[in-house]
């Protein structure tokens, strides 16, 4: 399994043709206290870059874009009852949704963990 990052502060775990997606620790820190996460319906298909989810803090609502194309096969129901998970454990239990990848080639432009750390440090 390998983990990728985007410059929109999402992480993607890839396991075969399944990708698990969430927001990074840096993103949750910038957003502040997250109060609600609106997740896509299972079965929805996205093209890379589509609006996929909305994450709301007290002061802002931010769109989460689909980092790669695919079909939603599962969403993290725990976030609906406990949005604070996205603050406390953003890169594990606070995952957002899982996609069945349609074009693995799209992963190529994404960052590694080291590259993302460098990217964030420069912000």
């Amino acid at each position: 399994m390998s983990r990728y990052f985007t410059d929109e502060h999402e992480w993607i775990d890839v396991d075969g043709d399944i990708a698990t997606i969430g927001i990074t620790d840096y993103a949750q820190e910038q957003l502040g206290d997250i109060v609600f996460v609106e997740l896509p319906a299972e079965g929805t298909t996205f093209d890379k870059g589509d609006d996929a989810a909305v994450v709301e803090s007290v002061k802002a609502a931010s769109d989460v874009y689909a980092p790669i194309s695919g079909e939603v096969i599962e969403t993290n129901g725990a976030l609906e009852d406990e949005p604070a998970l996205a603050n406390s454990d953003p890169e594990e239990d606070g995952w957002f949704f899982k996609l069945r990848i349609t074009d693995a080639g799209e992963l190529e432009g994404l960052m590694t963990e080291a590259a993302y750390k460098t990217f964030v440090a420069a912000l």
Partner: protein
Amino acid sequence: MTMIKEGRPTAPAPVNEAHMAPATATGNRALMLEEPLIFEIGSTDTTGVDFAPAPRVASRLGGLERRAIGLPGLSEQETVRHYTRLSRQNYAIDLGLFPLGSCTMKHNPRLNEKVARMPGFADLHPLAPQSTVQGALAVIHELAQWLITLTGMHGVAMSPKAGAHGELCGLLAIRAALEARGDARSVVLVPESAHGTNPATAAFCGYKVEDIPATPEGRVDLAALKRRLGPDVAAVMITNPNTCGLFERDMKVISDAVHAAGAFVYCDGANFNAIVGRVRPGDLGVDAMHINLHKTFSTPHGGGGPGSGPVVLSEALVPFAPLPFVEKQGDRFVLIEEESAQDHHAGTFGRMVAFHGQMGMFTRALAYILSHGADGLRQVAEDAVLNANYILRSLDDVLDAPFGGSGPCMHEALFSDKGLAEGFTTLDIAKGLIDEGFHPMTMYFPLVVHGAMLIEPTETESKAALDQFIMALRSLAQRAKAGDEALKGAPYHAPRRRLDETLAARKPVLTWEAPTLAQAAE
């Protein structure tokens, strides 16, 4: 000589440690009174209204009689006390300076309240026969004429219910005008510094919204705007004076360029107070502009409405204005509704509200306008701008004024949080102002300035009031720069300390529910 030593002491003992504000049994603090919810003090069988007994009749309710409702009542005395106590937990213009930028919190003259309550206006039905409401139609017409003349425009749509509703009206008129000439366009350009209602309105009307950047001096980037204009642009929405408190110097050039590209200019008139009587937006090439009667023309904000947002229109847009409106025919006033629209107003984009707009605001605004007259309104703009510049120049040595070098401000002064001690924010200064007895300024808007503080004093503040406010804000700025930790706990003296907005949003409690037995037992 008789010595009387009994009776009460007439001077207080000096305050010492033992006299530091102990908690009270009730939670009240003298005049600061805690007040429960009506659901906690009322009951469903208490009422503060008496009615004559109803005659006995056979019900015609179709078998749908209601059971329990769950609405508590209070006697009149308890009702008056409940709301009077609650009122005392509010800050208001009647208490002091209320410098919310972009909101124009000016004094609300009481004559206007008296006038609006005359039965000849307040007790009229919107569908009463027109022969019985000629005076009311005359008020709408007279106010309309003032608004048209003050703005140098050709017509006015009176029915929009508030500023955002007026924006909707203006954009719908623009869209109708474009469609009438068979010219579907898809994009509305909005400056970064715009009010949030602008992009929301444009999107609602089916337009794609694109940002126009600002120059470093806080004005619309004319070159960037010109580059973006093209056959797909329907309109440009500009706030002038803008939300950085500056007049858009290039407004006429912008309008000419927009018109040359076949598009329309929408002006957000929220800040009309700065220029009323001195500048007519019609002279700047504006096609549509809403006027917040609750800002410039002083109808009360009432804790969040009602507002009123008439929209003045250029010659090109007047044919598309919404129904209904008032027309003077000879010495009669006629309300043009759906029935008569075909003959008089075939291009209308339709109806926006059930009736004719905010009559109760029209009477107040007209009384305000007549009280000021043309000379007084000009003085309003001048004093509003003078007061804001006085604040700007009295504080720009202790607070960062990002556009202080861009020339005079108009009716509001903009500062940023630059230079405050590490960890200190605009919010801390705002909450500190509460303890000093002022309402805070607008915070974190416009978004183009970090930690923005937007201060609009309005023309109805005396120099003494401004000086006291300046003194308070200087003190707070110095404390925030010095890193005074106590500031982070402010306010200390308000009815409540800082409130937990995260909790409110994560677990929304939007209505009251009776506690369970277990909760009650705690």
